[in-house]
């Protein structure tokens, strides 16, 4: 009873493998002409659609920048995908159809550049960390050292994500051993755990505390131990609309872009 089924499965698997082989070779063949094609018929105006992959911490400021950009360019449409910079970098390297990447650390941008998916990124902002506690501060957290207390439940970002890497640096600089209860996927997930009151404190960016309004309270980390992370932005080689992508990057780097970012709490690079 099993043998014919197995035979069929084997045959299908072979066909599938063949298909997969054909698929990958044809797609790489097709890529080159498609690219030169788009280069020869570039739209002179900033019209069309682009997808921007941006670090989770940029959610509010880039949403604002995107609206402003669309208002200034009525024929342009921008779709954002916000997430952990490390995850977005992996998606871009694996061929996700994005036009612009804005990372919360040089490391993830460097990985994208090394994979030849982007060229010449520009740094547009920097950001530092802050402690976020739920309203009322149930565990009475007042200093960074309180995060090392056994009775304080702390959420931080996972180490692969910029906010997690910077948090580890800050703890090391302060000589603290913090045992978090969870390593969240990105900074907004960490912030959410604080907003929900499931943890007593979370380590997020200054900009996240500002964006959360009165849902969390911020506690400053002394400048002596705090660490900054740089935000690079670049157009991606795979972009089908490089002109529009470049126009958006330019708007982020412009004086108007800088004022939106500084209002959100980012610092100038």
């Amino acid at each position: 009873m099993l043998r014919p089924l197995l035979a069929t499965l084997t045959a299908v698997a072979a066909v599938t493998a063949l298909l997969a082989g054909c698929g990958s070779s044809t797609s790489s063949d097709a890529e080159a002409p498609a690219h030169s094609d788009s280069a020869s018929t570039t739209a002179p105006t900033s019209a069309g659609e682009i997808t921007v992959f941006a670090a989770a911490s940029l959610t509010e400021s880039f949403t604002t920048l995107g609206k402003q950009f669309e208002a200034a360019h009525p024929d342009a449409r921008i779709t954002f995908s916000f997430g952990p910079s490390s995850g977005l970098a992996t998606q871009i390297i694996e061929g996700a159809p994005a036009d612009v990447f804005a990372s919360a650390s040089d490391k993830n941008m460097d990985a994208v550049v090394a994979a030849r998916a982007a060229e010449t990124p520009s740094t547009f902002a920097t950001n530092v960390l802050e402690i976020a506690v739920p309203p009322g501060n149930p565990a009475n957290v007042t200093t960074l050292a309180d995060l090392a207390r056994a009775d304080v439940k702390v959420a931080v970002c996972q180490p692969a994500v910029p906010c997690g890497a910077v948090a580890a640096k800050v703890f090391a600089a302060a000589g603290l051993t913090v045992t978090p209860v969870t390593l969240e996927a990105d900074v907004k997930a960490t912030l959410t755990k604080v907003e929900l009151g499931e943890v007593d404190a979370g380590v997020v960016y200054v900009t996240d505390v500002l964006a959360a309004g009165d849902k969390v309270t911020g506690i400053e980390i002394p400048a002596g131990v705090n660490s900054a992370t740089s935000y690079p932005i670049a157009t991606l080689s795979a972009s089908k609309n490089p002109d529009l992508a470049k126009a958006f990057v330019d708007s982020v780097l412009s004086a108007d872009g800088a004022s939106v970012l500084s209002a959100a709490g980012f610092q100038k690079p």
Partner: protein
Amino acid sequence: MTVTSPVRVPPRAPRPDGGRRPDADVTSRAPWPLAVPAVVAVAFLLLPLVGLLLRASWRDLPRLLLESEASGALRLSLVTATIATVISLILGVPLAWVLARARFRGRGLLRALVTLPLVLPPVVGGVALLFALGRRGFVGQYLDQWFGLTLPFTSAGVVLAETFVAMPFLVVTVEGAFRSADLGLEEAAATLGSRPFATFRRVTLPLIAPSLIAGSVLCWARALGEFGATITFAGNLPGVTQTMPLAVYQALERDPDAAVALSLVLLVVSVAVLALLRERWLHPGATL
């Protein structure tokens, strides 16, 4: 590589009824409107797995599995999925019996409600668990105040999330078995003086044993693969709440090769589950 000739289904073993000629050729040859989509469907289902196998760096596999948090995550996954299955058995089998046998108003509604997690997106389940059993949840706040017990970010929270998502699979499978089990045998036991619970334990349960096993394996596999409810309710901490699916997700951001290696481990476990259930699922005409 063209699929023009109809796929010929190999002749089956002689039918038990023996009445029809085995070569009646009415159903053995798939007409192309069925054969072509069927082949596409099979290719579609197998293609991603081929992608996984092609991408795997086999030589680095042992190192990737040893270096990553794989062993801790796998152990946690196996332990929590097993506990979730045991809880599902203890609570789910009686529930299945009640749904199948007890007569009361609103039974249909009750069945719909308790099997809701079958169709509910798991991440929604995680959010719901958080607002019920989280530290500020309407039940969880009292657990915290009275017993100092908080479930999020603990391995117990992982078990809870997995049980929530997986138990309905067991309930549905076992309920069907209770329905189709031969009542005559139970009645015979009763007339011989067996008490109801003794009848349940010594007659009904052995009768439905195959479904009980199938339901348990299904429930266990679902618990093992749980992602959405776990990361939402239990968080992500290696060794405590980071199960295999969470480890795969996290590894993909840091080191895709490690993610592939971890995925292969889960694939092997899944194939093993399928092998366990082959009698049930690979049997022609089998239903859940």
